[in-house]
């Protein structure tokens, strides 16, 4: 048996020499073009980072290709970003152009920096998880194909971060994204009483329901779901395999807008519901890509420089956002969970 608890490798062993020498001494950076950053240190030392987008769900041979490229131009040094892009770390300026050419030649999109679109943080979907209400990788591929221009070329008023989660567990932590794509169920769990008895701890399942929709069923010694109180979060299913929610027509995608993480200007914000449901329409999810393009285009047209999507909407008003996008406002848009009161318009200030 091998050693346990050794922890991850020390990152220092993987840093390129120019970083080791200038660690903590960077003075400024420039975005030379989308996807290409230059960082300059106090000493005048420079490092160029060339960022490419990727699928995130990748084969070992893909990684080996990255390694090949890094060896060719970067002394073997590269990193991944917090949004799953790859950054080739160039210490020798003369390697920059050849690297970029090679990457382009191999079909890798260079971009994702600055005021534009970067990769979509996303999750497993039908590829690997047991609770998804939609796929992840396929939706992401469709959206990125559609918005490709904004990754590498076209600029937007501010950073624009899209994220996807395939169920309400929100492994993509989409709750604070400029645009969030969230898989949702729309039907209550289908309880299999026999399986419940075998596989599930009844009190735990009852406690798992945020709206207290589950009660014991004395007759069957199993569980009952009060369908009227169920909002299909799937948390009971996480605790109990005998309560699946997935359904071809019930499942689909909701779209959220205006979230933000950074503390710049307006501070962090949750994303808010824009579209409660769009159908799962594989392989290209045209309804989803269209909706997102609408948001992006209206934002590009209407926002001031440096305004994130949420800041733009806060300025023009939500009533205007629904007008501009043509998205229908429904009763689902009005919060009715625990903090709902704070969302009500308790002022006469509104636009018609």
């Amino acid at each position: 048996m091998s050693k346990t608890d050794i922890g991850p490798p020390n990152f220092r062993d993987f840093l390129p020499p120019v970083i080791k020498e200038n660690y903590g001494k960077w003075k400024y950076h420039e975005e030379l073009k989308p996807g290409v950053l230059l960082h300059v240190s106090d000493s005048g030392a420079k490092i160029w980072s060339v960022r490419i987008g990727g699928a995130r769900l990748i084969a070992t041979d893909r990684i080996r290709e990255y390694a090949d490229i890094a060896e060719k131009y970067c002394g073997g040094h590269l990193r991944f970003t917090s949004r799953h892009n790859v950054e080739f770390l160039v210490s020798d300026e003369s390697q920059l152009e050849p690297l970029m050419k090679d990457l382009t030649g191999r079909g890798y999109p260079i971009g994702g920096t600055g005021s534009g679109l970067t990769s979509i943080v996303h999750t497993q979907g039908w590829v690997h998880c047991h609770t998804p209400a939609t796929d992840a990788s396929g939706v992401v591929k469709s959206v990125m194909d559609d918005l490709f221009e904004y990754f590498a070329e076209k600029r937007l008023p501010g950073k624009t971060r899209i994220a996807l989660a395939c169920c309400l567990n929100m492994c993509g932590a989409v709750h604070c994204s400029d645009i969030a794509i969230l898989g949702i169920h729309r039907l209550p769990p289908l309880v299999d009483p026999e399986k419940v008895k075998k596989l599930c701890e009844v009190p735990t399942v009852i406690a798992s329901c945020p709206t207290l929709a589950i009660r014991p069923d004395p007759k069957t010694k199993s569980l009952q779901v009060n369908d009227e109180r169920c909002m299909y979060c799937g948390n009971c299913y996480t605790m109990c395999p005998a309560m699946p929610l997935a359904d071809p027509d019930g499942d689909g995608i909701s779209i959220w807008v205006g979230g933000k993480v950074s503390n710049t200007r307006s501070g962090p914000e949750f994303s808010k519901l824009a579209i409660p449901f769009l159908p799962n329409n594989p392989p290209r999810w045209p309804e989803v890509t269209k909706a997102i393009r609408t948001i992006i285009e209206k934002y590009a047209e209407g926002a001031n420089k440096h305004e994130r999507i949420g800041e733009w909407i806060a300025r023009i008003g939500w009533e205007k956002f629904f007008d501009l996008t043509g998205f229908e406002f429904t009763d689902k848009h009005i919060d009715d969970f625990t903090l709902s009161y704070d969302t009500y318009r308790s002022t006469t200030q509104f636009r018609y």
Partner: protein
Amino acid sequence: MTKTDTPLLDELEKGPWPSFVKDIKMAAEKKPETMDLLRQLEKSYNDKIGHWKHGGIVGVMGYGGGVIGRYSDSPDLFPGVEHFHTIRVNHPSGWFYTSKALRTVCDIWDKHGCGMTNMHGSTGDIILLGCRTEALQPCFDDLSDAGFDLGGSGSALRTPSACVGPARCEWSCYDTLDACNDLTHTFQSELHRPMWPYKFKFKFSGCPNDCVASIARSDCSIIGTWKDDIKIDQEAVKSYAGAGMDVQAEVVDLCPTKCMSWDGKKLSIDNKNCTRCMHCINLMTKALSPGDERGASLLVGGKAPILEGAQMSWVIKPFMKMESPYDELKEFAETLWDWWDENGKMRERVGELINRVGMRVFLREMGIKAIPQMVKFPRPNPYYFWWPEEVPQREGK
């Protein structure tokens, strides 16, 4: 396998964005059974429903986590993915690699698994996707021998992550990479052996731009900040203006506290009123930079919606020096965990617990004084409690 097996997914080989379908096919060239992943997925694309069974407990010796069990619900149709477990491998802080390190991981994974990965998972781990039960232990052994260890899963400490920080960013107010690496190593047991009410995540960002989204995605967010004045290079400000930046409109007018002014020659900041939002620094990185008295704000409570609704972390300590060995942070975390462990309900994140019992109780238990920096505004409702010792009690009670 011919192309016609997966016509829907084949569609996703087209288009300019890198295609995961190509990668699955690429992996299947070496590992034919991996083609079953694509075939099962094609079925999902037809059915509009997933085809994985619910969970399943599998693992490696000595650990309570790091592996996510996964089985196909149609092993007859897709024997290649009958077992298809995930191994979470703790990434090096900042996701820095040498090509050599990457090749090592790839070789191990090709030996034991299906050849597909996520680089990375959304908590930050290297995700090795699709391993048979019997291959888990050998795979772990090889990883460990090569200097890699598993990441977190279950009701345990999850793999901490950090922004690129001082390695390649001019704004990092503390050493995010070292802090992340240090805490990960210090808390190996908490990471590998689930024993808490629920999961717990640390994320380390070097400045308020928060490039690892720590405020939204971690129970304990350590976000770099400073105490003294923003450093201004007036000449450099003028260069920005000269180069066409509308300093008034783009910088000064967008300052959230309106604490800046610009007269065309000099940029002034009323630092007492600056809330260090980074906006001006972001825009004029050659001219402005964080002050010299640097450290981090400690925020607690961030999480996704399950169960009681999403929360973003909120300020507990406005300013903390962040120097190795990070004792203040470690002691804080340990006290927090003890309290949570004792008081948390099953599957209750620490932020939900604080919310349930009230900040008042939390602060007393942690020995922290209430300060206005913890809130956006003081309570608007009159439903507050007094500690018995604060009020003269009635006779005979």
